[in-house]
């Protein structure tokens, strides 16, 4: 649950931290679309090398950025090379042989391209998450008149997950203090109901009260709620966002045109 803490408490003083979250979202989307739009493995590599990596360095989050890539991207890339390197349908240019398995060049180049696409997709979003406080993100969406229900659901889920995992620890201790042993497969299986029962049922039982509290605090009372915190924005960023979106739409259009044709 470390990542949750990161997103909910991402604080920093860099210029990238201070950008409007929507600018960073637009950047993540655009860079992903652009990466997928061109069929050449050097292109996503270029995007990663000249945009994403320098941005991570500039924001001072390089260590965590690389750590997250190692955790999430490397396994996908490895599986990709194994599956497609050996089993890409229609590939026949064998470059190596391992027992009955044949490594094929088409498979390797396909795996390389796809892995780099995923690298850009993940990097764009990691950058957004590592430099953006979830609260600021939600405030920015709220200013763009996104439905309060949607903002509530996302915000509450982000905060309930850690609250619930703290509760899970308390429940675990309470049951262990009553002699519950949680060792081995059988112990674990037997512990499931005493541990998950209070956790999950408790969480659902709270829903009714929380809904009542929200309603008495006027949730949904007006279609035009205000926001306590102002999210910094600027004309430059607005132009930047428009340009990025235009770029993304163009890339999609060209590609759809190419596919349909």
């Amino acid at each position, binding site marked *: 649950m470390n990542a949750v803490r990161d997103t909910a408490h991402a604080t920093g003083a860099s210029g990238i931290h201070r950008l409007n979250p929507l600018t960073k979202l637009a950047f993540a989307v655009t860079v992903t679309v652009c990466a997928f739009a061109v069929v050449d493995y050097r292109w996503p590599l270029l995007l990663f090398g000249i945009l994403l990596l320098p941005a991570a360095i500039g924001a001072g989050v390089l260590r965590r950025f690389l750590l997250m890539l190692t955790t999430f991207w490397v396994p996908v890339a490895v599986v990709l090379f194994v599956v497609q390197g050996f089993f890409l349908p229609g590939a026949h240019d064998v470059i190596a042989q391992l027992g009955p398995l044949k490594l094929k060049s088409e498979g390797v180049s396909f795996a390389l391209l796809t892995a780099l696409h995923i690298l850009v997709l993940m990097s764009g979003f990691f950058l957004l998450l590592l430099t953006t406080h979830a609260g600021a993100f939600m405030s920015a969406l709220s200013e763009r008149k996104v439905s309060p229900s949607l903002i509530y659901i996302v915000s509450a889920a982000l905060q309930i997950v850690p609250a619930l995992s703290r509760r899970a620890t308390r429940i675990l201790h309470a049951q262990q203090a009553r002699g519950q042993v949680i060792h081995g497969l059988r112990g674990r299986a037997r512990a499931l109901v005493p541990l998950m029962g209070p956790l999950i049922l408790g969480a659902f039982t709270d829903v009714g009260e929380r809904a009542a509290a929200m309603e008495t605090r006027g949730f949904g009372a007006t279609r035009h709620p205000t926001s*306590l915190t102002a999210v910094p924005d600027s004309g430059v960023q607005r132009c930047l966002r428009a340009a990025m979106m235009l770029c993304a739409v163009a890339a999609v259009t060209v590609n759809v045109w190419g596919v349909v044709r």
Partner: protein
Amino acid sequence: MIEVKGFSFTYPTGSRPALSDVDFEVEPRELCAVVGGGGAGKSTLAGVVSGTVPHLTGGTAQGTVRVNGRDLDDTPLSGLVGEVGLVMQNPFNQISGARFSVREEIAFGLENLGVPRDEMAARVDLVLDDLGLTGVRDRSPYELSGGQQQLLAIGSVLVMRPTVMVLDEPTSQLDAAGNALVFEALGTLKEQGVTVLLIEHRMERLAHAADRVLVLDRGAIVAKGTPGEVLADERLEEWGVAPLRYTVAARRAAGRGLWPARKPLPVTLDAAAAGFGETVDHLDRGDWR
């Protein structure tokens, strides 16, 4: 202003009424306390007056509940927002989770009503100050201690400046200092003309703060009156309510002739000290009996 007349209510899954034939009124500038044992229907009553029961829970209701002159039967919950505030027993559920800092969480209700930003900020900061939460204003609501969460829950309702305030055991996790802050805030509310309905276990606080006390037992009101009348009633324990030690001591002392005969049994430290002081004086002068 709260007016409840002949009100009975049964939950959809209940086999007996949670409230039966409840009848009472609370005027503006009045703090009415509700006491009773576990399962007596106190929280249900809080829900009824704040409009969440039966609107959200379902169930069958008879009789009328009027708040500020409006019949709750025909008033949707949204029609009461800002007018009636409800502080629930469990602060964890009162915290919306929609906001990431204490300051924003308090503002949540005002945001929902579309209050302009400047006014909102001023009102929020005032509440933070009143409840001693300024030091944790930027923390996540979920990182606070139980007591601080309780103060936050109260603050999130106070900030909306309701004219009727319903509080369900709002101080159970607070220490003496936190308690004092809350009762101070309630006193200020009363002066401002707010109607307060308070469910509370700590009798000593009530004896000072309440103008009137209702006792609920198995869904029915079995006693109502001033704290002095109700909390000194000898049936209090039968109704599942803890009597004050002052009252118990005076009652037993009276049995041995050690409590001034014309004085009512005390429910506050002051009254007990005055009464027993008189006893001691007389004993010293030797003119007792």
